[in-house]
Protein backbone atom coordinates (compact mmCIF):
# COMPACT_ATOMS: atom_id res chain seq x y z
CA UNK A 1 0.00 0.00 0.00
CA UNK A 2 2.70 2.46 1.09
CA UNK A 3 6.29 1.96 0.02
CA UNK A 4 9.23 4.15 0.96
CA UNK A 5 12.30 3.49 -1.14
CA UNK A 6 15.72 4.59 0.10
CA UNK A 7 14.83 8.21 0.84
CA UNK A 8 17.37 10.83 1.85
CA UNK A 9 16.03 14.04 3.36
CA UNK A 10 17.92 17.23 4.13
CA UNK A 11 17.07 20.41 6.02
CA UNK A 12 19.54 22.73 4.34
CA UNK A 13 22.88 21.19 5.27
CA UNK A 14 21.43 18.89 7.94
CA UNK A 15 21.18 15.34 6.70
CA UNK A 16 18.11 14.16 8.63
CA UNK A 17 17.19 10.91 6.84
CA UNK A 18 20.08 8.88 5.49
CA UNK A 19 18.53 6.32 3.21
CA UNK A 20 15.47 4.68 4.71
CA UNK A 21 13.18 2.07 3.18
CA UNK A 22 10.07 0.49 4.61
CA UNK A 23 6.63 -0.56 3.61
CA UNK A 24 3.17 -0.74 5.06
CA UNK A 25 0.74 -3.35 3.75
CA UNK A 26 -3.02 -3.21 3.57
CA UNK A 27 -4.65 -3.73 6.96
CA UNK A 28 -1.47 -3.53 9.03
CA UNK A 29 -0.46 -1.43 11.99
CA UNK A 30 3.21 -0.64 11.44
CA UNK A 31 5.14 1.37 13.98
CA UNK A 32 8.30 3.46 13.73
CA UNK A 33 10.07 3.84 17.05
CA UNK A 34 13.18 5.78 17.93
CA UNK A 35 14.61 8.38 20.26
CA UNK A 36 14.16 12.14 19.99
CA UNK A 37 15.64 13.47 16.79
CA UNK A 38 15.85 10.06 15.12
CA UNK A 39 13.87 11.41 12.18
CA UNK A 40 10.39 9.99 12.73
CA UNK A 41 8.49 13.22 12.10
CA UNK A 42 10.67 13.99 9.12
CA UNK A 43 9.69 10.65 7.60
CA UNK A 44 5.98 11.29 8.09
CA UNK A 45 6.31 14.78 6.63
CA UNK A 46 8.08 13.34 3.61
CA UNK A 47 5.46 10.63 3.13
CA UNK A 48 2.69 13.25 3.36
CA UNK A 49 4.40 15.46 0.80
CA UNK A 50 5.23 18.39 3.12
CA UNK A 51 8.93 17.94 2.38
CA UNK A 52 10.48 16.42 -0.70
CA UNK A 53 13.20 13.76 -0.47
CA UNK A 54 16.49 14.59 -2.14
CA UNK A 55 16.80 11.06 -3.47
CA UNK A 56 14.61 8.00 -3.29
CA UNK A 57 10.85 7.95 -3.61
CA UNK A 58 7.54 7.23 -1.93
CA UNK A 59 4.82 5.11 -3.50
CA UNK A 60 1.18 5.01 -2.48
CA UNK A 61 -1.09 2.43 -4.10
CA UNK A 62 1.76 1.71 -6.54
CA UNK A 63 1.85 5.32 -7.68
CA UNK A 64 4.87 7.51 -7.07
CA UNK A 65 3.85 10.44 -4.89
CA UNK A 66 7.21 12.06 -4.12
CA UNK A 67 6.41 14.94 -6.45
CA UNK A 68 2.71 15.27 -5.73
CA UNK A 69 1.51 18.20 -3.62
CA UNK A 70 0.51 17.43 -0.06
CA UNK A 71 -3.15 18.34 -0.49
CA UNK A 72 -3.54 15.96 -3.41
CA UNK A 73 -2.05 13.11 -1.41
CA UNK A 74 -4.84 13.58 1.12
CA UNK A 75 -7.34 13.22 -1.71
CA UNK A 76 -5.71 9.91 -2.64
CA UNK A 77 -6.66 8.52 0.76
CA UNK A 78 -3.81 9.25 3.16
CA UNK A 79 -4.35 11.38 6.27
CA UNK A 80 -2.04 12.39 9.09
CA UNK A 81 -2.49 13.19 12.76
CA UNK A 82 0.50 15.49 13.16
CA UNK A 83 2.87 15.68 16.10
CA UNK A 84 1.61 18.08 18.75
CA UNK A 85 -2.01 17.82 17.56
CA UNK A 86 -1.97 21.03 15.49
CA UNK A 87 -5.73 21.58 15.74
CA UNK A 88 -6.97 24.94 14.47
CA UNK A 89 -7.18 26.70 17.82
CA UNK A 90 -9.36 29.61 16.74
CA UNK A 91 -11.87 27.38 14.99
CA UNK A 92 -14.63 25.38 16.65
CA UNK A 93 -14.57 21.63 17.04
CA UNK A 94 -17.18 21.42 14.33
CA UNK A 95 -15.13 23.56 11.95
CA UNK A 96 -12.01 21.52 12.65
CA UNK A 97 -13.92 18.40 11.64
CA UNK A 98 -15.14 20.14 8.50
CA UNK A 99 -11.53 20.94 7.63
CA UNK A 100 -10.76 17.26 8.04
CA UNK A 101 -13.38 16.49 5.40
CA UNK A 102 -12.08 19.24 3.12
CA UNK A 103 -10.76 16.95 0.41
CA UNK A 104 -13.89 14.84 0.21
CA UNK A 105 -15.63 14.86 -3.15
CA UNK A 106 -18.99 13.64 -1.83
CA UNK A 107 -20.05 17.10 -0.75
CA UNK A 108 -22.57 18.06 1.84
CA UNK A 109 -23.69 15.18 3.93
CA UNK A 110 -21.16 14.04 6.47
CA UNK A 111 -23.72 13.03 9.10
CA UNK A 112 -22.66 9.39 9.06
CA UNK A 113 -19.05 10.48 9.59
CA UNK A 114 -19.95 12.79 12.46
CA UNK A 115 -21.84 9.90 14.05
CA UNK A 116 -18.79 7.68 13.59
CA UNK A 117 -16.32 10.11 15.17
CA UNK A 118 -18.67 11.13 17.98
CA UNK A 119 -19.21 7.49 18.80
CA UNK A 120 -15.44 7.04 19.12
CA UNK A 121 -14.92 10.37 20.88
CA UNK A 122 -18.15 11.15 22.78
CA UNK A 123 -16.49 14.06 24.51
CA UNK A 124 -16.25 15.97 21.25
CA UNK A 125 -19.97 15.81 20.66
CA UNK A 126 -20.96 18.04 23.54
CA UNK A 127 -18.20 20.47 22.56
CA UNK A 128 -19.02 20.97 18.91
CA UNK A 129 -19.30 24.73 19.32
CA UNK A 130 -16.26 25.13 21.58
CA UNK A 131 -13.08 26.67 20.18
CA UNK A 132 -10.48 23.95 19.77
CA UNK A 133 -7.80 26.05 21.47
CA UNK A 134 -9.75 26.13 24.72
CA UNK A 135 -9.90 22.35 25.08
CA UNK A 136 -7.58 20.20 27.19
CA UNK A 137 -4.59 18.48 25.64
CA UNK A 138 -6.33 15.12 25.66
CA UNK A 139 -9.45 16.52 24.05
CA UNK A 140 -7.32 18.21 21.41
CA UNK A 141 -5.61 14.91 20.65
CA UNK A 142 -9.01 13.30 20.19
CA UNK A 143 -10.07 16.13 17.94
CA UNK A 144 -6.90 15.76 15.87
CA UNK A 145 -7.66 12.07 15.40
CA UNK A 146 -11.34 12.66 14.66
CA UNK A 147 -10.40 15.37 12.18
CA UNK A 148 -8.09 13.03 10.29
CA UNK A 149 -10.79 10.34 10.19
CA UNK A 150 -13.21 12.78 8.57
CA UNK A 151 -11.31 12.40 5.29
CA UNK A 152 -12.11 8.65 5.36
CA UNK A 153 -8.47 7.70 4.93
CA UNK A 154 -7.41 4.33 3.62
CA UNK A 155 -4.13 4.83 5.44
CA UNK A 156 -3.62 6.97 8.54
CA UNK A 157 -0.28 8.28 9.77
CA UNK A 158 -0.05 9.18 13.45
CA UNK A 159 2.83 11.06 15.03
CA UNK A 160 3.11 10.39 18.76
CA UNK A 161 -0.60 10.41 19.56
CA UNK A 162 0.10 9.55 23.22
CA UNK A 163 2.51 12.41 23.84
CA UNK A 164 1.83 14.28 27.07
CA UNK A 165 -1.30 12.35 28.01
CA UNK A 166 -2.21 10.74 31.33
CA UNK A 167 -1.85 6.93 31.42
CA UNK A 168 -5.60 6.28 31.35
CA UNK A 169 -5.98 8.42 28.27
CA UNK A 170 -3.00 6.73 26.64
CA UNK A 171 -4.75 3.38 27.01
CA UNK A 172 -7.92 4.83 25.56
CA UNK A 173 -6.09 6.31 22.58
CA UNK A 174 -4.35 3.01 21.85
CA UNK A 175 -7.67 1.17 22.05
CA UNK A 176 -9.15 3.59 19.57
CA UNK A 177 -6.20 3.14 17.22
CA UNK A 178 -6.86 -0.60 17.24
CA UNK A 179 -10.56 -0.01 16.61
CA UNK A 180 -9.80 2.26 13.65
CA UNK A 181 -7.51 -0.41 12.26
CA UNK A 182 -10.10 -3.18 12.73
CA UNK A 183 -12.61 -1.05 10.84
CA UNK A 184 -10.31 -1.29 7.83
CA UNK A 185 -7.86 1.60 8.00
CA UNK A 186 -4.19 0.82 7.60
CA UNK A 187 -2.00 2.58 10.17
CA UNK A 188 1.54 3.89 10.34
CA UNK A 189 2.20 4.81 13.95
CA UNK A 190 5.17 6.82 15.22
CA UNK A 191 5.69 6.46 18.95
CA UNK A 192 8.08 7.07 21.81
CA UNK A 193 5.94 4.82 23.94
CA UNK A 194 7.63 1.83 22.36
CA UNK A 195 6.07 -0.78 24.61
CA UNK A 196 2.50 0.23 23.80
CA UNK A 197 3.24 0.67 20.13
CA UNK A 198 4.89 -2.74 19.81
CA UNK A 199 1.97 -4.35 21.64
CA UNK A 200 -0.61 -3.26 19.09
CA UNK A 201 1.54 -3.27 15.92
CA UNK A 202 2.13 -6.15 13.58
CA UNK A 203 5.54 -4.96 12.41
CA UNK A 204 8.02 -2.34 13.54
CA UNK A 205 11.06 -0.40 12.41
CA UNK A 206 13.58 0.99 14.89
CA UNK A 207 15.24 4.25 13.85
CA UNK A 208 18.46 5.83 15.00
CA UNK A 209 19.74 9.15 13.65
CA UNK A 210 18.21 8.82 10.22
CA UNK A 211 18.66 5.11 9.55
CA UNK A 212 16.74 1.92 10.27
CA UNK A 213 18.78 -0.17 12.71
CA UNK A 214 16.30 -2.97 13.33
CA UNK A 215 13.04 -4.20 11.88
CA UNK A 216 10.75 -7.15 12.15
CA UNK A 217 7.52 -8.49 13.63
CA UNK A 218 6.52 -6.37 16.60
CA UNK A 219 6.28 -9.26 19.06
CA UNK A 220 9.84 -10.32 18.23
CA UNK A 221 11.14 -6.79 18.79
CA UNK A 222 9.35 -6.74 22.13
CA UNK A 223 11.60 -9.62 23.21
CA UNK A 224 14.74 -8.28 21.58
CA UNK A 225 17.41 -7.50 24.18
CA UNK A 226 18.70 -4.43 22.41
CA UNK A 227 15.22 -2.95 22.06
CA UNK A 228 14.44 -3.78 25.67
CA UNK A 229 17.55 -2.00 26.85
CA UNK A 230 17.22 1.09 24.67
CA UNK A 231 13.47 1.68 24.47
CA UNK A 232 11.59 -0.42 26.97
CA UNK A 233 13.62 0.50 30.04
Amino acid at each position, binding site marked *: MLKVNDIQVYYGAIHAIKGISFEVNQGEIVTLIGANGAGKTTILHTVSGLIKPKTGNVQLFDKEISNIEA*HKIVEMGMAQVPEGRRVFAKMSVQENLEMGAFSRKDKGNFDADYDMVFEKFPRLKERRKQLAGTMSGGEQQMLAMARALMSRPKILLMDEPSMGLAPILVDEIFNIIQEINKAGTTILLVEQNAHKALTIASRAYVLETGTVVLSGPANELLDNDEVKRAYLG
Partner: protein
Amino acid sequence: MKDFLQQIIYGINAGSIYALIALGYTMVYGIVKLINFAHGDILMMGAYFGLLAITVLGLPFPLAIVIAMLVCAAFGMIINKVAYKPLRNAPRISALITALGISMFLENYFVVQFGLEVRKMPEIAWLKGEVFIGGLSIPKVTFLIVGLSIACMIALQFIVRKTKVGKAMRAVSEDMQAAKLMGINVDKTISITFALGSALGGLGGVLYSVAYYQVEPYMGILPGLKAFVAAVLGGIGIIPGAMFGGFVMGIIENLTKGFISSSWSNAILFGILILVLLFKPSGIFGKNTREKV
Protein backbone atom coordinates in the same frame (compact mmCIF):
# COMPACT_ATOMS: atom_id res chain seq x y z
CA MET B 1 -23.13 70.08 18.33
CA LYS B 2 -24.37 70.35 14.77
CA ASP B 3 -20.85 70.95 13.50
CA PHE B 4 -19.68 67.99 15.47
CA LEU B 5 -22.29 65.67 13.94
CA GLN B 6 -21.51 67.05 10.51
CA GLN B 7 -17.84 66.14 10.91
CA ILE B 8 -18.80 62.70 12.19
CA ILE B 9 -20.75 62.15 8.99
CA TYR B 10 -17.79 63.16 6.86
CA GLY B 11 -15.69 60.91 9.04
CA ILE B 12 -17.93 57.91 8.51
CA ASN B 13 -17.77 58.60 4.79
CA ALA B 14 -13.97 58.62 4.67
CA GLY B 15 -13.78 55.91 7.31
CA SER B 16 -15.80 53.40 5.34
CA ILE B 17 -13.34 53.76 2.47
CA TYR B 18 -10.37 53.34 4.83
CA ALA B 19 -12.09 50.30 6.26
CA LEU B 20 -12.46 48.71 2.81
CA ILE B 21 -8.79 49.24 2.11
CA ALA B 22 -7.71 48.18 5.58
CA LEU B 23 -9.48 44.86 5.01
CA GLY B 24 -7.10 44.10 2.14
CA TYR B 25 -4.05 44.73 4.32
CA THR B 26 -5.40 42.70 7.17
CA MET B 27 -6.60 39.71 5.14
CA VAL B 28 -3.28 39.34 3.36
CA TYR B 29 -1.35 39.81 6.59
CA GLY B 30 -3.58 37.29 8.33
CA ILE B 31 -2.80 34.58 5.84
CA VAL B 32 0.81 35.16 4.73
CA LYS B 33 2.09 37.49 7.48
CA LEU B 34 3.09 40.05 4.90
CA ILE B 35 2.31 43.76 4.74
CA ASN B 36 1.34 44.18 1.12
CA PHE B 37 2.58 47.73 0.61
CA ALA B 38 1.38 47.59 -2.98
CA HIS B 39 -2.20 47.55 -1.69
CA GLY B 40 -2.52 51.35 -1.81
CA ASP B 41 -1.74 51.12 -5.50
CA ILE B 42 -4.57 48.65 -5.95
CA LEU B 43 -6.79 51.50 -4.81
CA MET B 44 -5.21 53.77 -7.40
CA MET B 45 -5.70 51.13 -10.11
CA GLY B 46 -9.30 50.63 -9.07
CA ALA B 47 -9.89 54.36 -9.53
CA TYR B 48 -8.29 54.34 -12.98
CA PHE B 49 -10.18 51.25 -14.13
CA GLY B 50 -13.44 52.72 -12.87
CA LEU B 51 -12.68 55.99 -14.63
CA LEU B 52 -11.71 54.27 -17.88
CA ALA B 53 -14.77 52.06 -17.80
CA ILE B 54 -16.96 55.16 -17.59
CA THR B 55 -15.10 57.52 -19.92
CA VAL B 56 -13.63 55.16 -22.52
CA LEU B 57 -16.06 52.27 -22.52
CA GLY B 58 -19.03 54.47 -21.70
CA LEU B 59 -20.31 52.02 -19.12
CA PRO B 60 -22.78 52.98 -16.41
CA PHE B 61 -21.33 53.62 -12.97
CA PRO B 62 -22.48 50.37 -11.27
CA LEU B 63 -20.92 48.29 -14.03
CA ALA B 64 -17.74 50.34 -13.79
CA ILE B 65 -17.51 49.42 -10.11
CA VAL B 66 -17.86 45.73 -10.90
CA ILE B 67 -15.20 45.93 -13.60
CA ALA B 68 -12.78 47.80 -11.36
CA MET B 69 -13.25 45.17 -8.64
CA LEU B 70 -12.74 42.26 -11.03
CA VAL B 71 -9.66 43.74 -12.67
CA CYS B 72 -8.17 44.59 -9.28
CA ALA B 73 -8.87 41.06 -8.07
CA ALA B 74 -6.97 39.72 -11.06
CA PHE B 75 -4.08 42.12 -10.42
CA GLY B 76 -3.98 41.07 -6.78
CA MET B 77 -3.59 37.44 -7.81
CA ILE B 78 -0.92 38.31 -10.36
CA ILE B 79 1.06 40.36 -7.84
CA ASN B 80 0.91 37.46 -5.40
CA LYS B 81 2.03 35.01 -8.04
CA VAL B 82 4.95 36.91 -9.54
CA ALA B 83 6.18 38.80 -6.50
CA TYR B 84 5.24 37.14 -3.23
CA LYS B 85 4.77 33.45 -3.89
CA PRO B 86 8.38 32.87 -4.95
CA LEU B 87 9.46 34.47 -1.66
CA ARG B 88 7.18 32.52 0.64
CA ASN B 89 10.06 30.79 2.38
CA ALA B 90 12.45 33.73 2.15
CA PRO B 91 13.14 36.06 5.09
CA ARG B 92 10.30 38.48 5.68
CA ILE B 93 12.40 41.52 4.91
CA SER B 94 12.78 40.31 1.30
CA ALA B 95 9.03 40.17 0.83
CA LEU B 96 8.66 43.59 2.44
CA ILE B 97 11.20 45.13 0.08
CA THR B 98 9.54 43.40 -2.85
CA ALA B 99 6.21 44.89 -1.79
CA LEU B 100 7.72 48.38 -1.86
CA GLY B 101 9.26 47.62 -5.25
CA ILE B 102 5.95 46.49 -6.70
CA SER B 103 4.33 49.62 -5.34
CA MET B 104 6.88 51.89 -7.03
CA PHE B 105 6.65 49.90 -10.23
CA LEU B 106 2.88 50.28 -10.41
CA GLU B 107 2.95 54.00 -9.65
CA ASN B 108 5.58 54.67 -12.28
CA TYR B 109 3.91 52.46 -14.81
CA PHE B 110 0.72 54.45 -14.43
CA VAL B 111 2.68 57.69 -14.72
CA VAL B 112 4.08 56.45 -18.03
CA GLN B 113 0.72 55.23 -19.27
CA PHE B 114 -1.53 58.05 -18.15
CA GLY B 115 0.76 60.93 -17.27
CA LEU B 116 0.88 62.92 -14.06
CA GLU B 117 -2.18 64.98 -14.83
CA VAL B 118 -4.98 64.74 -12.33
CA ARG B 119 -8.03 63.34 -14.04
CA LYS B 120 -11.52 64.09 -12.89
CA MET B 121 -13.99 61.37 -12.21
CA PRO B 122 -17.10 62.46 -14.15
CA GLU B 123 -19.95 63.52 -11.92
CA ILE B 124 -22.65 60.94 -11.70
CA ALA B 125 -26.00 62.65 -12.13
CA TRP B 126 -27.98 60.63 -9.62
CA LEU B 127 -25.29 61.09 -6.99
CA LYS B 128 -25.16 64.88 -7.18
CA GLY B 129 -26.41 67.03 -4.39
CA GLU B 130 -27.18 66.60 -0.75
CA VAL B 131 -29.87 65.41 1.53
CA PHE B 132 -30.77 67.57 4.52
CA ILE B 133 -31.66 65.76 7.70
CA GLY B 134 -32.24 67.76 10.85
CA GLY B 135 -30.12 70.63 9.61
CA LEU B 136 -27.24 68.35 8.64
CA SER B 137 -26.24 68.13 5.03
CA ILE B 138 -25.35 64.68 3.87
CA PRO B 139 -23.94 64.26 0.36
CA LYS B 140 -25.91 61.66 -1.58
CA VAL B 141 -22.68 59.96 -2.46
CA THR B 142 -22.12 59.31 1.24
CA PHE B 143 -25.12 57.01 1.32
CA LEU B 144 -23.71 55.05 -1.57
CA ILE B 145 -20.21 54.85 -0.15
CA VAL B 146 -21.24 53.87 3.34
CA GLY B 147 -23.95 51.51 2.13
CA LEU B 148 -21.73 49.67 -0.35
CA SER B 149 -18.84 49.47 2.09
CA ILE B 150 -20.95 48.02 4.85
CA ALA B 151 -22.63 45.58 2.45
CA CYS B 152 -19.21 44.36 1.30
CA MET B 153 -17.98 44.00 4.86
CA ILE B 154 -21.01 41.91 5.78
CA ALA B 155 -20.50 39.79 2.67
CA LEU B 156 -16.84 39.34 3.56
CA GLN B 157 -17.68 38.31 7.12
CA PHE B 158 -20.12 35.78 5.73
CA ILE B 159 -17.52 34.37 3.34
CA VAL B 160 -14.86 34.09 6.01
CA ARG B 161 -17.07 32.66 8.74
CA LYS B 162 -19.47 30.42 6.86
CA THR B 163 -18.19 29.27 3.48
CA LYS B 164 -15.79 26.45 2.76
CA VAL B 165 -13.22 28.72 1.15
CA GLY B 166 -13.46 31.16 4.07
CA LYS B 167 -12.87 28.43 6.58
CA ALA B 168 -9.92 27.27 4.51
CA MET B 169 -8.56 30.83 4.69
CA ARG B 170 -8.78 30.77 8.47
CA ALA B 171 -7.18 27.34 8.64
CA VAL B 172 -4.29 28.39 6.39
CA SER B 173 -3.78 31.56 8.41
CA GLU B 174 -3.51 29.55 11.63
CA ASP B 175 -1.30 26.72 10.46
CA MET B 176 -0.26 26.37 6.85
CA GLN B 177 1.23 22.92 7.24
CA ALA B 178 -1.71 21.48 9.12
CA ALA B 179 -3.99 22.98 6.46
CA LYS B 180 -2.09 21.09 3.78
CA LEU B 181 -2.53 17.90 5.78
CA MET B 182 -6.30 18.49 5.63
CA GLY B 183 -6.14 18.49 1.84
CA ILE B 184 -6.46 22.26 1.55
CA ASN B 185 -4.80 23.75 -1.52
CA VAL B 186 -2.82 26.44 0.28
CA ASP B 187 -1.59 28.28 -2.82
CA LYS B 188 -5.09 28.55 -4.20
CA THR B 189 -6.44 29.74 -0.86
CA ILE B 190 -3.81 32.47 -0.60
CA SER B 191 -4.55 33.52 -4.16
CA ILE B 192 -8.26 33.84 -3.37
CA THR B 193 -7.39 35.93 -0.33
CA PHE B 194 -5.39 38.35 -2.49
CA ALA B 195 -8.27 38.47 -4.96
CA LEU B 196 -10.86 39.29 -2.31
CA GLY B 197 -8.69 41.89 -0.59
CA SER B 198 -7.82 43.52 -3.91
CA ALA B 199 -11.43 43.59 -5.06
CA LEU B 200 -12.31 45.51 -1.90
CA GLY B 201 -9.30 47.78 -2.51
CA GLY B 202 -10.51 48.40 -6.04
CA LEU B 203 -13.97 49.27 -4.79
CA GLY B 204 -12.35 51.60 -2.26
CA GLY B 205 -10.49 53.26 -5.12
CA VAL B 206 -13.59 53.92 -7.19
CA LEU B 207 -15.48 55.24 -4.17
CA TYR B 208 -12.54 57.41 -3.14
CA SER B 209 -12.35 58.95 -6.59
CA VAL B 210 -16.09 59.53 -6.59
CA ALA B 211 -15.93 61.22 -3.21
CA TYR B 212 -12.93 63.42 -4.02
CA TYR B 213 -13.27 63.53 -7.83
CA GLN B 214 -9.61 63.08 -8.63
CA VAL B 215 -7.62 60.26 -10.14
CA GLU B 216 -3.82 60.30 -10.39
CA PRO B 217 -0.96 57.77 -10.14
CA TYR B 218 0.05 58.62 -6.57
CA MET B 219 -3.44 58.90 -5.16
CA GLY B 220 -3.17 55.52 -3.41
CA ILE B 221 -0.28 56.40 -1.13
CA LEU B 222 -1.95 58.51 1.52
CA PRO B 223 -5.25 56.65 1.87
CA GLY B 224 -3.23 53.43 1.66
CA LEU B 225 -1.08 54.52 4.59
CA LYS B 226 -4.08 55.65 6.60
CA ALA B 227 -5.82 52.36 5.94
CA PHE B 228 -2.66 50.57 7.03
CA VAL B 229 -2.73 52.51 10.30
CA ALA B 230 -6.40 51.55 10.59
CA ALA B 231 -5.51 47.88 10.20
CA VAL B 232 -2.79 48.14 12.84
CA LEU B 233 -5.08 50.09 15.15
CA GLY B 234 -7.75 47.40 14.97
CA GLY B 235 -5.19 44.61 15.20
CA ILE B 236 -3.49 43.51 12.01
CA GLY B 237 -4.88 40.21 10.76
CA ILE B 238 -8.22 40.71 12.50
CA ILE B 239 -11.06 41.46 10.09
CA PRO B 240 -13.53 43.24 12.43
CA GLY B 241 -10.53 45.17 13.77
CA ALA B 242 -9.80 46.57 10.32
CA MET B 243 -13.38 47.73 9.88
CA PHE B 244 -13.41 49.35 13.29
CA GLY B 245 -9.99 50.93 12.73
CA GLY B 246 -11.10 52.34 9.38
CA PHE B 247 -14.08 54.14 10.85
CA VAL B 248 -12.06 55.42 13.80
CA MET B 249 -9.42 56.85 11.47
CA GLY B 250 -11.99 58.54 9.26
CA ILE B 251 -13.77 60.10 12.20
CA ILE B 252 -10.61 61.30 13.96
CA GLU B 253 -9.33 62.74 10.72
CA ASN B 254 -12.46 64.77 10.08
CA LEU B 255 -12.83 65.93 13.67
CA THR B 256 -9.25 67.17 13.51
CA LYS B 257 -9.92 68.93 10.24
CA GLY B 258 -13.11 70.47 11.58
CA PHE B 259 -11.99 71.56 15.01
CA ILE B 260 -8.21 71.76 15.07
CA SER B 261 -6.72 72.28 11.65
CA SER B 262 -6.48 70.45 8.35
CA SER B 263 -2.74 70.65 8.42
CA TRP B 264 -2.63 68.70 11.67
CA SER B 265 -4.85 65.82 10.63
CA ASN B 266 -2.19 63.60 9.05
CA ALA B 267 0.24 64.24 11.86
CA ILE B 268 -2.39 63.13 14.34
CA LEU B 269 -3.32 60.04 12.32
CA PHE B 270 0.24 58.84 12.05
CA GLY B 271 0.81 59.81 15.66
CA ILE B 272 -1.88 57.23 16.44
CA LEU B 273 0.20 54.59 14.67
CA ILE B 274 3.17 55.41 16.88
CA LEU B 275 1.04 55.31 20.02
CA VAL B 276 -0.52 51.98 19.06
CA LEU B 277 2.87 50.48 18.26
CA LEU B 278 4.24 51.72 21.57
CA PHE B 279 1.41 50.75 23.90
CA LYS B 280 -0.66 48.06 22.21
CA PRO B 281 1.22 46.73 19.19
CA SER B 282 -1.34 43.96 18.73
CA GLY B 283 -4.08 46.56 18.24
CA ILE B 284 -7.38 47.16 19.98
CA PHE B 285 -8.87 43.80 19.00
CA GLY B 286 -5.62 41.86 19.31
CA LYS B 287 -4.20 39.66 22.00
CA ASN B 288 -0.86 40.90 23.23
CA THR B 289 1.63 38.66 21.52
CA ARG B 290 4.60 40.41 20.03
CA GLU B 291 5.08 40.06 16.29
CA LYS B 292 8.16 41.30 14.52
CA VAL B 293 7.58 42.78 11.12
